[in-house]
């Protein structure tokens, strides 16, 4: 029974999903499916509560060491539950009663979340693989949900084929590691892998896993699918899939790189270093000339994956904490901005181009203002989550001597400012006289809640980051090899002189 508590959020979500399906089946064909959305949201809320409650559990494993709940996994549980909750609310806002397959959509979101959560708490590569598949497959499906449009199925197809392609690599990687050690348990690897008599297999396995996960987090050069898929998928779904699976995949990457194979950092730091540089550069340069909003955000998400990878190269407890913190702030602002887009553009993308958003703040000051806030946070302006995210990431990297990476990264954030700011300027520019008046439906309750959650999160992370930061730091403490935080103030000769 105690074991069940350790996967309580997953259970809750699963049950909620099943409930949604059952109710859906009982409802009349013509009846509005929105209530199901509220039901699902309730489920997500319950899962969020359960995840938070898990903080009260003592760290430990369950089901024969297949899952472990500790500060780290709970941190990501909470995050994922929050993301799903927000995504559900956004969906509720942007869909209409006539939108088909709503029941399935809500259920899929919940089930997908189950997979993501398992990814973050699993300590057995098998379960990680299953979780990955659960989250991926549900995302493939959701990407194709707007069947009427020509784009949506295409994005689903691209995502599906390339995703499976990458999964094969991931799987092959696991096989290699299994071959090198004879086990697929993270803990076992952490303790015994170093003694493997076939390190070559370990290297290759590690590389293949990095490839597979790199694809999932859309890190260059494995990013190619991202823009197309984001463009075609329904905006609310993008809100979820641009954050949830990524966050989970990053958690897995942390587990494997820092938890299972830290002694191979000599091998994986260079890969991640280059992936970070490529992701940041390609993402930002690619976004420069975008005219479609969603593609632009796709490139920006590539760039942000790069920033997050920078934290990995720090190879320190600070790095883990920074990555976790960045995941949160990125999720907050990205979900938020997609909330605005999916409201303004609607479930079936009425507004696709940046220019369509010209004068948004004239039509709806609230939406304009909030969108500007998220964009500013994406730029990384202080007093928003985006800034402290970048700040911690680069501080950690620089503290580990990654001077060049830091410089490249911050120059990149300068380039990024261009297209984000162009967006902000567009929102606040006068609407063109010739342009037809854009019809923005007045924000519904779920949207307001979602916007409030995300905006509040963005600001809190920017102004009072201490809470989340310490959570992230305690998450970092769960890694045995980094349990002693690198004393940041080690090299400080002046610390004794207390500031007056």
């Amino acid at each position: 029974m105690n074991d069940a508590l350790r996967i309580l959020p997953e259970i809750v979500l699963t049950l909620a999903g099943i409930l949604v399906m059952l109710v859906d089946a009982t409802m009349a064909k013509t009846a509005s499916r929105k209530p199901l959305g509220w039901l699902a949201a309730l489920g997500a809320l319950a899962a969020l509560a359960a995840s938070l409650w898990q903080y009260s559990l003592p760290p430990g494993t369950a089901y024969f060491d297949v899952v472990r709940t500790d500060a780290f996994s709970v941190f990501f549980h909470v995050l994922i539950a929050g993301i799903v909750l927000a995504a559900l609310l956004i969906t509720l806002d942007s869909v209409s009663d006539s939108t088909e397959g709503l029941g399935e959509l809500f259920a899929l979101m919940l089930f997908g979340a189950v997979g993501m959560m398992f990814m973050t708490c699993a300590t057995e590569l098998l379960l990680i693989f299953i979780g990955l598949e659960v989250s991926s497959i549900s995302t493939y499906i959701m990407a194709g949900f707007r069947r009427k449009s020509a784009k949506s199925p295409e994005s689903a197809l691209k995502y599906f084929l390339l995703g499976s392609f990458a999964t094969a690599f991931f799987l092959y990687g696991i096989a290699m590691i299994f071959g090198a050690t004879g086990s697929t348990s993270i803990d076992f690897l952490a303790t015994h892998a170093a003694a493997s008599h076939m390190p070559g297999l370990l290297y290759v396995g590690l590389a293949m896993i990095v490839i597979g996960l790199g694809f999932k987090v859309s890190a260059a050069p494995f990013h190619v699918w991202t823009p197309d898929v984001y463009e075609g998928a329904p905006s609310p779904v993008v809100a979820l899939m641009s954050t949830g699976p990524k966050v989970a995949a990053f958690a897995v990457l942390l587990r494997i790189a820092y938890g299972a194979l830290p002694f191979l950092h000599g091998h994986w730091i260079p890969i991640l270093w280059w992936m970070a540089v490529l992701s940041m550069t390609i993402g930002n340069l690619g976004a420069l000339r975008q005219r479609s909003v969603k593609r632009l955000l796709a490139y920006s998400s590539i760039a942000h994956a790069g920033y997050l990878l920078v934290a990995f190269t720090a190879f320190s407890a600070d790095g883990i904490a920074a990555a976790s913190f960045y995941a949160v702030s990125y999720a907050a602002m990205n979900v938020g901005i997609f909330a605005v887009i999916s409201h303004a553009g609607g479930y079936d993308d009425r507004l696709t181009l940046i220019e369509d958003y010209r004068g948004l703040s004239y039509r709806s000051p609230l939406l304009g203002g909030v969108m500007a806030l998220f964009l500013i946070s994406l730029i990384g302006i202080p007093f928003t989550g985006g800034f402290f995210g970048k700040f911690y990431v680069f501080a950690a990297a620089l503290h580990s001597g990654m001077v060049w990476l830091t410089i490249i990264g911050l120059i990149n954030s300068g380039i990024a400012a261009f297209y984000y700011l162009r967006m902000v300027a567009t929102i606040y520019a006068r609407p063109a006289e010739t342009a037809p008046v854009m019809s923005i439906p007045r924000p519904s309750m779920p949207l307001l809640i979602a916007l409030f959650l995300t905006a509040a999160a963005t600001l809190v992370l920017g102004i009072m980051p201490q809470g989340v930061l310490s959570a992230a730091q305690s998450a970092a403490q769960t890694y045995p090899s980094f349990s002693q935080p690198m004393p940041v103030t080690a090299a400080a000769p002046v610390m004794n002189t207390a500031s007056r």
Partner: protein
Amino acid sequence: MLTDRILTLITFVPTGGALVVALLPRRGRVVQVFTLLVTLLTFGLSLHLPVHFDYAHHGFQFVENNAWIASPAIRYHLGVDGLSLWLVLLTTFLGPIGVLVSWRAIQTRTKEFYFFFLLQQTAMIGVFVALDMILYYGFWELSLVPMAILIAMCGPSRGRQAAIKFFLYTFLPSALFLVAVLWLYAKTGTFDFVQLQAALASGSLGLSPAALGWASLAFLVAFAVKVPVFPLHGWLPDVIQEAPTAMAMVVAGKLGLYSIFRFNLGLFPEQSRAIAPLMIALGVIGILYGALLALAQTDMRRLIAYSILGNLSFCILGIFCFALTGLNGAVFQTLNEGITGSALLVLVSFLYERYGTYDMSLYGGVAGRLPMLATLYVITALALTGLPLLNGFVGEFLVLSGSFPVHPDWVGVAALGVILSASYMLWMVQRIFYGQPSSLVLNRVSADLNAREHFTLWPMAILMLAMGVLSPYWIRAIDGAMSGLANPASFTASRAVPAPAMRAAVPAALETEKP
């Protein structure tokens, strides 16, 4: 006790006001009036500083130092010294004026405008009072956003481009600035300015000179762009042209110059001196360049932009000669530019409200129609050209006389700017106000200054005269702050026997290093 929290109040009262503005109804002049009250309140609060400032004591005062973020240690550390004191006051003083000048100019999106306007106030004040590098950086970056948005919102023709140009020009270098800050943190383990200063001064860190040089360069470039210093001024004309007057008033000068004083001179004295020759050259070039280009403009706003460039270059010259007098002059000139430049922009915008263009070639003979405006315009122009008994002269004179012993050649060239500035200013005045009334002026019948405009302009005019005549009141505080940054011997008594005044002064200049 007010004194303990005064800086927080001054900094965040505008923010509070902004939040209220966001909730106010879009009806009548509610927003304007409220914003005006908020800015006036802020100004009133800020008057607390000079009253209770201890001019004898050179360190930071009204200090607030609380923990903000535990690890990495970022503190909420505020404080002002003789340098930031007046800059804070300048900012709060320009607050109400900014509201008054926008009163009629901003008709649409007033709520957004005043919301961001107040946010900008907070950001700028914060820059001047923050003593923690990250806190400072926060305000520094934050000050870009409302500015950019307002430029995009109000720019008549190419607002968006100007906004982006401005933002990128400032943001890109400040990214490198952040790298330098983080690097310093990695080496010293603190973001606190005071501790950083102590650590770097102690020289016990064993940092490589090259690395320090790069760090200081990263600082300098970020600030120089914001000033702007000569080759980095690409954004200035466009922004001055597109920005609403209330923003154009504050976009250039004080923020960047303050940062150079505080951080480049405060943290990297040697490195600053190493790069001084270049900066002096740029400063002098900037003086002449700005003046000459102002001579070539036909658009009032662009002319003002280039004249601002010229006047600010005086500050650069004064800073990098490291003579105490020159530094005082540079600070004083910063204040001057803030006041006089703003006054000129305000006047021009009043002309624009009446005649709807900034193109001087369409003007002429306005003096007959608007004598009061013409009078104030001439006074302002004279202040900018450095007429004695007005503030401009004191600044220029201190800068030049202070720097002259250090670099007679450069300063000699720079002094030519005095001639040029007179040329373009008087020419501007003549083209707008003198001669026969142009068709534009004949067709548009418009009244002379109304009460609001008088309230906008007279405070600045009076301040120009006051600062020109009673400069010691300002300089006594500045002198205290600068004495730590200047070279010990502030002039070379090459051949003459030092006059008594000098003998007395040398020890005063020598007593440096006030943490």
